[in-house]
């Protein structure tokens, strides 16, 4: 008995309890389909998409590192949490549910991130050119 066994055993017990609770639900197989579907959509679609973008960028000679990569992570994350508001069909229960202009806000956020990235890259390039000229002058 050590820390790993206790933690693992506790984990098995909690997971078994959760599984038992799920089996009490009407038609648990429907829940299993959604659980499996989540993995299938992530592993079969979202992740390959991300790796494909990176591969395309690499093929185009772009190095997705530093700020541009961080910008893509931030943009992707914001898109993920904004998607429900952008895609939700049907009306809302009342005007205080989803009261914001989510499409406008999403476009604003994407534009701000793009602007930041471009300005950062431009400043970086300018700085590099300056130091190079200074080096040459010296």
């Amino acid at each position, binding site marked *: 008995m050590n*820390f*790993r*066994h206790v*933690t*693992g055993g*506790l*984990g*098995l*017990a*909690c*997971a*078994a*309890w*959760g*599984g038992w*609770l*799920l089996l*009490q*639900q*009407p*038609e648990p197989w*429907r*829940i299993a389909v959604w*659980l499996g579907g*989540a*993995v299938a959509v*992530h*592993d079969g679609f*979202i*992740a390959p998409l*991300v*790796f494909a973008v*990176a591969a395309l960028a690499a093929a185009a000679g772009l190095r997705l*590192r*530093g700020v541009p*990569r*961080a*910008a893509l*992570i*931030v943009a*992707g*994350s*914001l898109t993920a*949490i*904004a998607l*429900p*508001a952008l895609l*939700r069909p049907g009306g*809302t*229960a*009342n*005007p*205080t549910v*989803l*009261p*914001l202009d*989510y499409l406008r*806000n*999403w476009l604003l*956020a994407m534009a701000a991130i793009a602007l930041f990235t471009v300005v950062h890259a431009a400043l970086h390039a300018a700085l590099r050119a300056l130091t190079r000229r200074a080096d040459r002058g010296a």
Partner: protein
Amino acid sequence: MRFTLPPGPPVTFKARLHDARTATAIGRWLGLAMAVCFATGVLSHYLQHPPGWLADRLPSRPYWGYRLTQGLHVASGIAAVPLLLAKLWAVYPRLFAWPPVRSLRHALERISVAVLVAAALFELFTGLLNTFQWYPWPFNFVPVHYAVAWLLLGALLLHVAVQWPLIRDHFTRRSPGTLALPAADGPDRRQLLLGVTAAVGAVTLTTAGQSVTALGALELFGPRSPSHGAQGLPVNRTAAAARITPASLADWRLTVHGPRPYTLTLEELRAMPQHDVTLPIACVEGWSKSAHWTGVRVRDLLERAGGGADARARVVSLEAAGAYRVMEMGRLYAQDPLTLLALRLNGEELSLDHGYPARIIAPNRPGVLQTKWVGRLEAA
């Protein structure tokens, strides 16, 4: 014909940073977010559906308790979105481990990882969509989200136990496992983690305004906004949805049951001692907003009906149907001087959507239990 395994995996990855240090560094924050999410979620579950033995022990203070914990529940769930995606990116190549199964033990491990990933994605997805009041699934959200939370906690504990040697060896920048990785990856990894941190900050700041009123100006993607709603407060269930019309309230009376039952007209309620309180409405969906309420103390109403100093309350709404039409209020809530049968909100008579003529407002409770359109109160 004999099936032979191809000599190598179908996909290989050349990219850097798919290593145990990256998995540990992101995993630590993901684990923390999941722990906060689980603890606050279980708390909310029991506040909303307390078993009998607990009902009279649930504390009514601090008055902002549920606002904080449920705000944290939704915020930590949202913060976990970039963390989970980054974590899965870091370990994605291991999906194609070759050979796919080495031993029975390895097979069981992989099954437990599949359960972990399924439960994590499922909880974040269903939780997020719920805050947008979007329920595309064919099951009941509350019991299923609760059950999968236990599945996730269990699979996560098991995962940490299984990966413990790697986690320990990569826990810090100077742990032996980290030092054994290519040194050139260090700065690159720190930039990656900085990007993930920025993403956590961005999703938090652009949604937290739904519960932290001071951050309202930064709110871009929250499903509720503190600046929207009649009388300064968002609404969940409207009078129309509850089938309450002004006509149906024409001869409204409050009936109070107990050893000495009585009824009151709205005029008589207004003539009783009024109290002002400042209390938040804190919804299970995560949004919350503080407001000023004026009305009669519930404990005064119970006492007048002959309920003792430890009376609890049952509150019945006039709405025709609804899961929370009848609300049970434990002793500590019922006797708290902040708990009101409110008649006024932010200086005005309650609007119909906010529960006119009278609604409950109590400290440290989920919004669905702040019963609107109260018709009957029972001292028990």
